[in-house]
């Protein structure tokens, strides 16, 4: 069976800094892969290089067997890859509901058909489903930019699911989110994984979250993969402990 996502010898240099320095891994369909590592170890850059946000210096990315190295974020989204960013990225002036519809409306029909489509492009029910799932009904009509940080984070994550992507990359979904919400998020992602079969790659510092959720973990340090394996094993790895302490 081919992997859902296959990354080979990925490199990204910024001048003399090798932010990502030869990373290879693959993710099977249905997996939840965790990516940990100290700040500055290249996790976000790895995501950005996979997702076309930055052009890789070397290496390749294949999604569902297609070479998508250097593809634009737009095309990767259309292919079925969703993502969230480390910093909040919502459409601040649009309502939460419109944020969700905006995140789903560009899939399927052609652009010119959309000009004449109903205002909600038939996505009302899907938006309601996601709103209920993420329990953001009480703020659905408010401008996303007016919500608390934690709520915006939920909206941000919810947006990534509107188009029923097969793979979602999450960059520090728990950062700045209160513990109760983190539990809710863990539960949600598990459910989306189990019921919709969505595959995840999650960058996260919160070890409880990673332990609870991930089936496999990669630890990065200085742009390279330091350790890879089941969460408990990676957590106990000497080199990993040293990387964290040394950082």
């Amino acid at each position: 069976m081919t992997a859902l996502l296959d990354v080979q010898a990925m490199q990204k240099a910024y001048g003399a800094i090798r932010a990502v320095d030869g990373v290879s891994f693959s993710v099977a369909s249905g997996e939840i892969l965790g990516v940990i590592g100290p700040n500055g170890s290249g996790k976000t850059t790895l995501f950005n290089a996979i997702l076309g946000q930055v052009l890789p210096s070397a290496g390749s990315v294949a999604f569902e067997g297609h070479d998508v190295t250097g593809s634009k974020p737009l095309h990767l989204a259309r292919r079925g890859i969703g993502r969230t960013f480390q910093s909040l990225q919502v459409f601040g002036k649009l309502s939460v509901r419109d944020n969700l519809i905006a995140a789903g409306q560009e899939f399927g029909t052609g652009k010119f058909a959309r000009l004449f489509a109903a205002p909600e492009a038939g996505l009302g029910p899907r938006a309601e489903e996601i709103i209920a799932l993420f329990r953001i009904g009480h703020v659905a009509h408010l401008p996303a930019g007016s919500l608390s940080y934690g709520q915006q984070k939920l909206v941000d994550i919810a947006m990534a699911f509107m188009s029923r992507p097969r793979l979602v990359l999450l960059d520090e979904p728990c950062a700045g989110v209160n513990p109760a919400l983190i539990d809710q998020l863990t539960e949600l992602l598990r459910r989306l994984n189990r019921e919709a079969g969505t595959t995840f790659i999650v960058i996260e510092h919160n070890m409880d979250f990673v332990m609870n959720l991930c089936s496999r973990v990669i630890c990065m340090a200085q742009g390279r993969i330091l350790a890879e394996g089941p969460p408990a094993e990676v957590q106990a790895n000497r080199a990993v402990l040293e990387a964290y302490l040394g950082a």
Partner: protein
Amino acid sequence: MMRFLLIAAAVIAIYFLPAGLKNYGIYIVTLWSVYVIAGMGLNLTVGYAGQISLGQAAFWGIGAYTTAIALKAGLPFLAALPLAALLCFGVGLLLGFPALRVQHHYLAFATLGFNILVYLVLRNEDWLTGGSFGINNIAEPTLLGWRISRPLDFFQFTWIATVAMGVLMALLLRSPWGRAFAALRDNPIRAESVGIDTTFYTLLAFAIGAAYAGVAGAFFACLVGFIEPAPFGVNTSLSMLLMVIAGGSGRFFGPAIGAMIVVLIPEWLRFAAEWYLAIFGVMIVVMMVWLPGGILSLPERLRGAK
């Protein structure tokens, strides 16, 4: 529903109101209506899609000259009008390309440069545009054989077109395209990551905004009957941008309010003679500082202050 009735009442009132005005008054109100059309287009580009343009008057000019030339060539107004709109749409699409590469003040200067370019073409290409003498004796528009020559009739014709363009704009903004424009404005990087083709929507935001200016230009040509390059310079583009921002950028009725400020206040300030520009300038400074969201943000500001 209440809102709809209010709007309908305002539309009808404005239709009949100028009946009591002298010709000059009717001229001013018609000019306001023309500015509203151009302003709606610019509001789409700037207020809804988050771009910046200091070139709207160039499209206004392209629309006006296209119409004047087409009418001289014997085309009816109803053929000249879509021609003006289409030409502006095409050129607007081209102006969108710099916006794919640069933003903010760089884009402001790119569009400003475009405006200067168009101005120079209007002034120097005598064979087409009449150069600095311009084009005079522009025919009054005829609709199905009826010649619209009374100022009041022409105003009402312009107003109906303004309302029609407004309805089209409202439909556009309510469609998924309107949401895509807003997403592009609020966060282009996020927009791309959820499959929104920001290249396409950026180009369209310029093209549609330009087409509105083209329509406005067609009416302007017939309103004044004589066009020369002067009204289509960078000054007017600045006024149009001011209009959008002063009214409330990204608010549907912003341009209507903004056009009042740009067209009517200078008239009211005539008593101040040479001081009028100074007074106008101070008003703008005060407003930009205290009410950056424009006049239409005033109710929210007052509510927020309680």
